[in-house]
């Protein structure tokens, strides 16, 4: 994409400037603070600020991406221990300090890759990822205990040479680091690439079917943030002059989550303020009321989780938006992409299904399905409820489903392929219930649909939105083109269906699977969708497979109709042959809703 940078640059200014200005102010504050605070506060806040940076990484994982993690403590500890071990056992010359710095980032990243691999795979659940994040610090802590002289066991490591800074120096270092991490997080979550995190949290299935691997996003994020946590650990080891097993432990991991929850998950500032305020208050108060402080903190945590799921910052933000109507970002200018080269017509089928069968235990749902779909064809799949239509669609689009027989998309056997890999072969799938991203805007959803082709900027929001003409048509015909900044959760049922279709079309698929795209739509909306589907197949040479109950609609738009009944393909022919056949009449005779 040679024109990528020019496309994104105009959008950078407003998106980045405000946070940068705020960050500069915060950095200035951090710089002068040691002059005004007493030594005690300087020392405690140095640690609190590092914890704040760590809390931001927890928030990116949990608040934004929906991965509840207790594991950041272990990455932090691994970075701190890598530093302390190098400085204690190997040396503290500048070269070794640099080595410690590098290791404190690389070791946690390697561990992060392991955790990412364990936690995120096709079919893994959020609960499972949390389980791993729980086991991981326990194992790391145990390794530290068993490390003998090397790790100092329960006593930790102490007495190594640290950077030649005084207390205010370390305070400024920690403060600037925390500001940088928060700034980076803030810019990233507001950028186009940052929307990926929310997309994974909202709807990971939709991500897969946009060709974005949610497991890859989660794993990469885990690796990157493990590195940040490790770097925080390096600074902690330098500033405190000691590392101990409790810095790596699962309990510290839960503390981080508590700070983020109270401060406000899904906001950047909330966790920073939560970590600093609670850690500082804890240092000041726990001496006087050790048990009571824990009791208050625990109670507050329970109340916030139940009543204020997005924490104090979230509550304030909601109150703020209620009072001041939200000043929305300007809608991006929509740019039509040149139409892709007309598909090589006719010859090779895009979809070949041979002997497909699927069983649930002793129940046979699909049996011996043979089907080929060529470019330009619009094949309707009809049959009564329970005929196996949706199951067939799933087998076509997800190679990890166990089935017999074979499915080829664009000439490739898809067995074992995850949806995102099949999407990369040129498949698009629209679900029966519109599958979109509720927390994002219309424009964000569409941009994510392009993310696999036009790599989104991690720095800002692009000023333009490049979409294929067919996708634009859908927006224009349904009026969505004037609602680009509208949050998706405010859309009507019909608009959501249209948005999902526009997203699927934005993938520029060669083969589109649609599951009842007209269910619950008005007559006018149905006509619109029919028009678009015909244009896609007849003019652009796509192939489409459509599950449909509405036989009038089928008759209007299909080039071919196949009938699925009792898991078998019982008819395959032209519209006239099939729709008027006795069999279809018999099958649908009792189906009142058809």
């Amino acid at each position, binding site marked *: 994409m040679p024109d990528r940078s020019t496309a994104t640059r105009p959008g950078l200014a407003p998106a980045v400037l405000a946070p940068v200005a705020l960050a500069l102010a915060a950095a200035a504050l951090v710089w002068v603070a040691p002059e005004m605070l007493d030594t005690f506060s300087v020392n405690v806040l140095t640690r609190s600020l590092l914890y704040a940076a760590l809390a931001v990484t927890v928030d990116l994982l949990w608040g934004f991406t929906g991965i*509840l993690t207790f594991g950041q403590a272990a990455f932090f500890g691994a970075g701190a221990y890598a530093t302390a071990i190098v400085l204690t056992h190997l040396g503290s010359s500048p070269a070794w300090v640099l080595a410690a710095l590098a290791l404190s980032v690389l070791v946690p990243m390697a561990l992060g890759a392991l955790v990412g691999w*364990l936690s995120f*795979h096709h*079919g*893994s*659940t*959020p*609960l*499972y990822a*949390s*389980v*791993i994040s*729980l*086991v991981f610090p*326990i*194992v790391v802590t*145990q390794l530290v*205990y*068993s490390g003998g002289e090397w790790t100092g066991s329960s006593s930790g490591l102490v007495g190594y040479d640290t950077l030649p800074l005084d207390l205010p120096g370390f305070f400024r270092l920690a403060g600037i680091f925390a500001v940088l991490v928060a700034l980076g997080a803030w810019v990233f979550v507001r950028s186009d690439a940052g929307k990926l995190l929310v997309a994974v949290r909202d709807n990971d299935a939709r991500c897969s079917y946009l060709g974005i691997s949610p497991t890859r996003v989660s794993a990469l994020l885990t690796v990157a943030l493990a590195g940040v946590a490790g770097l925080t650990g390096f600074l902690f080891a330098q500033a405190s002059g000691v590392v101990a097993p409790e810095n790596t432990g*699962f309990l510290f991991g*839960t503390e981080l*989550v*508590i700070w983020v*929850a109270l401060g406000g998950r899904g906001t950047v500032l909330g966790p920073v303020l939560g970590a600093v305020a609670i850690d500082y208050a804890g240092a000041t108060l726990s001496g006087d009321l050790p*048990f*009571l402080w*824990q*009791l208050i*903190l*625990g*109670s507050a*945590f*329970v109340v916030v*989780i*139940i009543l204020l*799921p997005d924490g104090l910052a979230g509550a304030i933000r909601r109150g703020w938006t209620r009072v001041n109507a939200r000043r929305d970002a300007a809608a991006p200018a929509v740019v039509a992409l040149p139409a892709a080269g007309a598909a090589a017509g006719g010859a090779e089928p895009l979809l070949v299904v041979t002997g497909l069968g699927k069983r649930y235990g002793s129940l046979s749902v699909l049996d011996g399905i043979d089907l080929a779909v060529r470019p330009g064809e619009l094949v309707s799949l009809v049959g009564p409820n329970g005929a196996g239509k949706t199951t067939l669609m799933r087998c076509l689009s997800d190679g990890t489903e166990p089935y017999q027989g074979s499915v080829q998309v664009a000439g490739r056997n898809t067995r074992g392929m995850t949806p995102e890999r099949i999407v990369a072969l040129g498949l698009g799938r629209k679900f029966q219930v519109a599958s979109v991203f509720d927390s994002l805007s219309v424009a964000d959803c569409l941009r994510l649909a392009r993310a696999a082709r036009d790599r989104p900027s991690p720095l800002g929001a692009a000023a333009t939105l490049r979409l294929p003409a067919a996708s634009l048509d859908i927006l224009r015909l349904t009026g969505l083109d004037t609602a680009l900044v509208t949050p998706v959760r405010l859309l009507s049922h019909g608009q959501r269906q249209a948005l999902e279709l526009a997203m699927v079309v934005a993938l520029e698929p060669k083969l589109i699977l649609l599951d009842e795209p007209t269910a619950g739509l008005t007559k006018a909306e149905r006509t619109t969708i029919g028009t678009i589907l015909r244009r896609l197949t007849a003019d652009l040479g796509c192939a489409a497979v459509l599950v449909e109950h509405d036989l009038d609609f089928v008759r209007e738009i299909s080039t071919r109709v196949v009938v699925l009944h009792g898991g078998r393909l019982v008819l395959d022919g032209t519209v006239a042959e099939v729709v008027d056949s006795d069999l279809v009449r018999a099958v649908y005779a009792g189906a009142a809703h058809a």
Partner: protein
Amino acid sequence: MLILLDVVTTAAILFIVSAGLLAIFGVLKIINFAHGAWLTVGAYCAVVAARLGLNPWAALPLAFAVGAALGTVAEWLIIRPLYRRPLDAILATWGLGIVIGQLITLAFGRDVQITPNLLGGTVALFGLDYSLYRLFAVLAAVLIGGSCAALLEGTRLGLKARAVIMNEALARALGIDTARVRLATFAIGAGLSALAGVLLTPLTSVDPNMGVAWLIGAFMLVMVAGGSFAALAVACLVFGAVQVLVSTFVSPILGSISVAVLAAVVLRISPRGFARA
């Protein structure tokens, strides 16, 4: 032979500790991270029973009643609003665990409490002197597992609970008061956890943090077992065996984390754990 006895008794103890957590997870699909706190509450019921001069065995019904009563309150105040947010339920129950732990500390102090033994001494078995109490733990595990199975299979509540496990929406459509089923299940699960706390007292000290040590192991076993008591029994036997064998032949330190690590690996390979049968 000694190893075999160790395996069976270790599995029994794991089963006793996990049963309450499993009952709740099976029906509610919620992880009760305050499970450790309920174990602790149960153990302190034994302390209170001893202070009141009651027979040590009287602590068992007392703990079940106290645990179930607390469970009822917790379900009502904390669990019910979070049914649709299972990850948040983990956090809220963890917070609840902190609160209960601190309240116990304020009431009883940090000190390690000692309770009278339920059963002491050893018996000669297969030519070995083996701890009588550990053998009793096997009986207790069988009784707990048996009564849970009987409850599920043979009562109206059990029938409703199974309906909720299979398909909650359908169960509600059939006129089952699913909220009450959940409440009853949580109360029974909490009661079982507290009961397990009493059964642990002869093996451990009693202090405000005692439950946390058992929480992670129980949690991992329940994850692997899914929702079924039979699968839990199998998981306890397999993991108990691994723990004992690793402890005996490699190192007790590795043995102590083997349950957690092995469970994580099992779930990576087979996300539904032992519950696929």
